[in-house]
């Protein structure tokens, strides 16, 4: 739910068109639930509902509208119990078609959903794509998301998740010897085309995140999930092991740096930008520096700067 962001006039009109079908479909709904559904605050939802009651059909022959010509709600229920019930409706009962934008946003989402194990075989997607295209008011722009191939690891993790059992696998963390882990799967995140499994690690006795590219030899166990209810941290939440890094770069290469700047604190100074952000460790840092070539310069900490230098030097030595 948005934290009280003002609703623009056009957005409000769009919401109002959806509000009537929603309220009629629900019959009776609390202000809080409706507000949540429409991503507005309860006060804004109440305002929308009150606004609804001055909307109606034009009056006949130049007279003011009669009560029957306007939307109406049960005011007692709203005032006393925070419940919304439409008592008179004068139109708009049917849900509007999707706009081209809405259809495009959902169509792209469906293509990503296609990469979830088992979804494609169900044959649900292609039917849905056609229905959405037909339910749009004008042709949506083609927004295509190419799905990543599903492999044994993903299928095993999915099966474990569906059956509610732990899965064992070999995990190769960066710069560490491989370990065998048994994990109660809780959630699979797909971000930037990468898959991450979050779950309770029997070895570490805590919630951990595993990059599926580092997972091999998965084996399903018959151990039922025992720690699925524990809180799961956000995917990229800062941890105490993070180091704070400062780098500088020319503004013209900002978009080329991509996701690096997503969680960075950026300051501009004499046409040079300085970004400060937390990083997971030296490993990802030195790789980052080489990836950017000379576009960005790691300033601090000095150890990270040294690591970047050594990493690039060692890489280069192979070609000498």
């Amino acid at each position, binding site marked *: 739910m948005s934290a009280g962001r003002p609703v623009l006039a056009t957005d409000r*009109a769009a919401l109002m068109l959806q509000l009537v079908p929603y309220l009629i479909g629900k019959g009776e709904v609390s202000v809080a639930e409706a507000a949540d559904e429409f991503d507005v605050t309860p006060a804004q939802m109440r305002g929308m509902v009150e606004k609804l009651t001055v909307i109606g059909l034009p009056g006949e022959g130049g007279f003011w509208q009669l009560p029957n010509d306007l939307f109406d709600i049960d005011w007692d229920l709203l005032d006393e119990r925070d419940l919304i019930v439409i008592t008179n409706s004068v139109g708009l009962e049917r849900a509007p078609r999707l706009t081209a934008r809405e259809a495009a946003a959902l169509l792209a*989402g469906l293509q990503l959903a296609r990469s979830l194990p088992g979804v494609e075989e169900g044959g649900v997607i292609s039917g849905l794509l056609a229905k959405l295209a037909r339910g749009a008011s004008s042709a949506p722009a083609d927004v295509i998301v190419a799905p990543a191939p599903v492999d044994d690891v993903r299928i095993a993790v999915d099966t474990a998740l569906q059956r509610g059992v732990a899965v064992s696998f070999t995990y190769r963390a960066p710069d560490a010897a491989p370990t065998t882990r048994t994990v109660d799967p809780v959630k699979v995140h797909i971000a930037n085309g990468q898959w991450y499994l979050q779950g309770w690690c029997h070895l570490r006795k805590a919630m951990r995140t595993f990059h599926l590219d580092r997972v091999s030899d998965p084996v399903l166990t018959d151990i039922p999930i025992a720690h699925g209810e524990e809180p799961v941290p956000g995917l990229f939440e800062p941890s105490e092991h993070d180091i704070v890094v400062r780098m500088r770069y020319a503004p013209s290469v900002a978009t080329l740096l991509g996701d690096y700047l997503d969680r960075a604190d950026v300051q501009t100074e004499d046409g040079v930008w300085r970004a400060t952000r937390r990083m997971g460790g030296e490993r990802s840092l030195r790789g980052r520096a080489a990836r950017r070539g000379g576009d960005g310069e790691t300033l601090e900490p000095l150890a990270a700067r040294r690591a970047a230098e050594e990493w690039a030097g060692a890489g280069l030595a192979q070609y000498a």
Partner: protein
Amino acid sequence: MNLVVALMATEQGLTKDTILSSVAGYREQSEAGASKDALEKMFERDKESLRGLGVPIETIGDYTDPDDLREARYRVPTAEYALPADIEFTPAEIALLNVAGGVWSQRSLSAQARSGLRKIRALGIAVDEPIIGYSPRISLREPSFAALQSAIEQSRVVTFPYLKPGEQAARVRRIRPLALVEYEARWHVYGIDVAIGADRTFLLSRIVGDVVISRESFEPTLRDGAGERALAGLRDVAARNSALLEVNPGSEASLRLNRRATPAEQGIRVPFVDVHVFADELASYGPEVRVVEPAELRVEVVRRLEAALGTHTGSGSGR
């Protein structure tokens, strides 16, 4: 809103005069002494914003003179306004749509997806088995996306400054944009480059300035199947370009690359789309991977490593 209700309730349509004198909103303005001119402007503006929301407003003109709009009548045809009654969604489809509606991390697209989902959910279909345990996200950080999407919807030519790696300055490109494609976690725009009259694919991350939508439009049928063509094009390129690499076993590089690789006599073969994008990735693996061929890729990787070494040599103070 009163305008929509009025226009939907009428079969024959309402004339502008009727609307301005009887529909709430205009009527108060009219009685308060607003000029006819001002009211008409207000009506035109409202009509446009409603069309922007996807509300179809039909103009029924004078049959003897279609250009004469004085007697024109306006209506919203319910069949075109409402979600078609014969589109039905199964609970399994709704469950998938719920996942699809939550994938966008970018705010405006997320709002669009949720809004579309609300309309479908208003059809009142229950979800019996929600899809749990997955949180797929599409990230989008390129500011050019929104303008390109608008241009595709309107079939309009766009221009934008495009910075190719290795070139000192951006060059302005002029294209008929046809589709937006996310491939290997990068956004591309596919279209026809007007200057050369051929299909081209551009990386959004290399668009370094504003996308300008021109007044020049193109035939919307060019968009038909464009997404699939773009994807097929990218896959073709990847199938043609393959790199021969030597990778340290057990290293990070080997984990990341082996998923995409086929074994070769000397190392592994990995297909790639863009030599610069792939060189970025390979350079990040430092000593864990060595490019055998093609030479072009080798040169680019070496160049990045040299630059990274050069930039990071010394303490960095006073520079």
